C-alpha cells in the first residue's frame, strides 16, 4: 500500500539523484563561475557577462567555435556517408552466421587506446609515413603532401572512430526493418534503387539521426584528436578551454567557454529531437 502511495518515485529517485549530483549541480556551479572574472590572480566574484562579451568580441576566440562547428559537421557527414554502406553490407550482404564476427571486426578499433590510435594516425599520415611513401613509390607523387597536423588529419582521426559507432546504430536500425517493406515495394513495381530511396532510407533516418547526433556531441567536445592530429594549426573549443587553465587557472573564462559549447550541443539536441518528433508524427 505504502509503495503504491509513493508511486514511481522510488524507482526514479536514484536516476534523479545521479543526474542532480553529477550533472545539474556541477552545471549550475559552472554557470555561476562563468559569471565571475579572473582579475590578475584574484577571483572577482561580482556577477557579469565579461567573459561572454570577451568571447564574442575577440576574433581568435570566436573563431574556435566556428572551427569546431565546421570540423564536427564535416566529421558527421563523412562518418554517415561511410557508415551507411558498411552497415548495409553487414546487415544485407554478409551471411547471418558471419554477421556477429563481422561486427566484432568492425568494432575492433574501439579496443585500442584512443591516444595510441591518434598517434598511430600521425605516423601513418607523416611525410615519411605509410601513405606518402606508398604514393611516392607508385609514382603518383613527386614529393610528399602534408596530411598530418592538418584539419584533414583531425577529420580522418575522428571519422575512423565514429564510422564504427554509426555503423552499429544504423545496422541495428536496418535489422529491425521487416522484409515485408521490400516485398511490398517490389509488388508495387519499385526497383532496388527506388526501394532504397523511397522506403529503406526514410525508415532508417531515425537511426542515422541518433548516430549523427552522438557523433556531433562526442566530436565537438573532444580534445585529444584535434590536439594530436591537428597540430594546433587551428584551435577548436576544447583546446581553447584547456588554454585557459593550463598556466593561469582562469576557470571563469573556461566555464564560460564550456557553457557556450553546451548551448551549441543543446541546440543540436533540440533540432534532432524536434526532427524525430516530426518524423514520428
Amino acid at each position, binding site marked *: 500500500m505504502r509503495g503504491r502511495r509513493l508511486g514511481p518515485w522510488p524507482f526514479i529517485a536514484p536516476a534523479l539523484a545521479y543526474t542532480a549530483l553529477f550533472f545539474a549541480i556541477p552545471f549550475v556551479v559552472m554557470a555561476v563561475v562563468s559569471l565571475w572574472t579572473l582579475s590578475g590572480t584574484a577571483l572577482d566574484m561580482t556577477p557579469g557577462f565579461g567573459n561572454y562579451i570577451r568571447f564574442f568580441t575577440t*576574433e581568435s576566440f570566436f573563431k574556435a567555435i566556428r572551427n569546431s562547428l565546421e570540423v564536427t559537421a564535416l566529421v558527421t557527414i563523412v562518418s554517415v556517408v561511410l557508415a551507411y554502406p558498411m552497415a548495409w553490407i553487414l546487415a544485407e550482404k554478409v551471411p547471418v552466421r558471419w554477421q556477429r564476427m563481422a561486427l566484432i571486426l568492425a568494432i575492433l578499433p574501439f579496443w585500442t587506446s584512443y591516444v595510441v590510435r591518434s598517434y598511430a594516425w*600521425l605516423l601513418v599520415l607523416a611525410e*615519411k609515413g605509410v601513405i606518402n611513401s606508398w604514393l611516392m613509390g607508385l609514382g603518383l607523387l613527386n614529393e610528399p603532401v602534408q596530411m598530418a*597536423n592538418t584539419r584533414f588529419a583531425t577529420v580522418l582521426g575522428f571519422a575512423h572512430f565514429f564510422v564504427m559507432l554509426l555503423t552499429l546504430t544504423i545496422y541495428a536500425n536496418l535489422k529491425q526493418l521487416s522484409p515485408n517493406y521490400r516485398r511490398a515495394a517490389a509488388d508495387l513495381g519499385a526497383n532496388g534503387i527506388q526501394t532504397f530511396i523511397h522506403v529503406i532510407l526514410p525508415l532508417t533516418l531515425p537511426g542515422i539521426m541518433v548516430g549523427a547526433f552522438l557523433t556531433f556531441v562526442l566530436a565537438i567536445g573532444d580534445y585529444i584528436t584535434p590536439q594530436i592530429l591537428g597540430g594546433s594549426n*587551428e584551435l577548436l573549443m576544447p583546446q*581553447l578551454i584547456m588554454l585557459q587553465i593550463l598556466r*593561469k587557472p582562469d576557470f571563469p573564462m573556461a566555464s564560460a567557454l564550456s557553457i557556450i559549447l553546451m548551448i551549441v550541443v543543446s541546440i543540436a539536441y533540440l533540432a534532432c529531437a524536434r526532427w524525430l518528433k516530426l518524423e514520428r508524427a
Partner: protein
Amino acid sequence: MKSNHREVPARRRLIAWALGSTMFGFFAWQAGPAQAAEEINALVWCDHDDPNLIEPFTRETGIKVNLKVYEGTGQALSLIEQSQPGDWDVLVVDGIDVPRVAAQGLLDPLPDDKLPLADIFPPLLMEAQTVKDGKRYAISEKFGYNSISYNKEKVDPADMQAMAILWGDKYKGRIAIYDYYLPVIGMVAMGLGKKTADLTEADLPAIRDTLLKMKGVSKLVGDVATSQNAIATGEVDILVGGGEWVTAGLAKDNPALDFVLPKEGGVLWSQAIGIFAASQKKDAALKFLQYIVSPEGQARLATSSCYWAMPVNTKATLTDEQKKILRWDDQPGYLANSQLYPAPSAELDAKMQEVWTEMLQK
C-alpha cells in the same frame, strides 16, 4: 540444459579464482607499505615518474614516493586547491613560478645548511625567484634552454646561429613551433633585441607581427609529444622552442638531431623543488629533496626517461657520453647568453595569451 550444467562448475571455479586473486592482491597490497615504512606524496613533472630515479631512493631510505604528474602551474594550483592541507609533501614547479607559489604560503622555508648550494651552477641558484626575506622556498633541480632544435643533416647549422631564420622564407614549411607561449614569446623578443625581463604591453605588437610571420612559414604548432615526434620523424627539420630536452633523449637513435643557442641566446627554463608548508612529513620530504639535488639523483633526473635536461649540480655523476649529449662544456657560455622566461604580471600574461591564441588561429 546440458551446457548450463557444465557452466556451473566453471562459473564456480571462475568465482573462486577471482576471489583468490582478490585476496592475494589485497594481502600483497597490505604487504607493500610494510616494506616502505613512510610514504610521501609529490606533485611533480613527468621526469620524476621514472623508476630509475625513484627506486634507488626508496631502497636506500625505505621512504615510498607517491607521484602525481601534472602539466602547467595552473593545473598544479587547481590540484592543491582541491586537496586537504597536508595531502602533499613535495612540489616540483616551474622556476619562474616559485614566487607565485611561495606568495600563497604553500611552501616551507628550506634549510640552506642541508643543501649543496656551493655545488649548484651559480645562475641556477635563482635567488631572485627562490629567496624571499632571506628564506629559500625552493631549489632549482634541472634546467635547459628553449632555443632551436634542428636536424643537422637537413639544415645548414650556420643558419641556426641567427634567430631571424625562424621567420624567414628559407626553411618555409620545415619548421615546428613548440606550443607554449612564454618561452616562444621570449625567444621572439630576444630575436627582436628585447630583454625578456623588461617586456611590457608596448612590446606586444612587434612580437605579435613576428609570431604571425613565424606561423606563416611553419608547418605546425605542437605540444611536447607532437613537436618531438615531428622532428624525430622528419616531418620538420627545425623546432622553435626546442632544446636539449627535445633532442638529447633522441640523440642515441638519431644523432643528426642537435640543438643550439643562436647568437641572440636562448630562454633559460628551470624547474625547482620545494616542500609544502602543510606537510606532516617534512623530514622525509627533505630527504627526498636532498636526494634529488645530490650528484647521483641529479644524474638520474637529468637523464630521466620522460626528457633529458641539464642537472643543476656541477658534481652530477653523468657519464662522458651523457655530458657530451647535454653539451656540458658549453654551459658557461650558454648560461651567460641566456635570459629567463618572461615573468609577466597577470594582466600582461593574459595579453600574451591573447596574442598567442591569435597566432594559433591564423
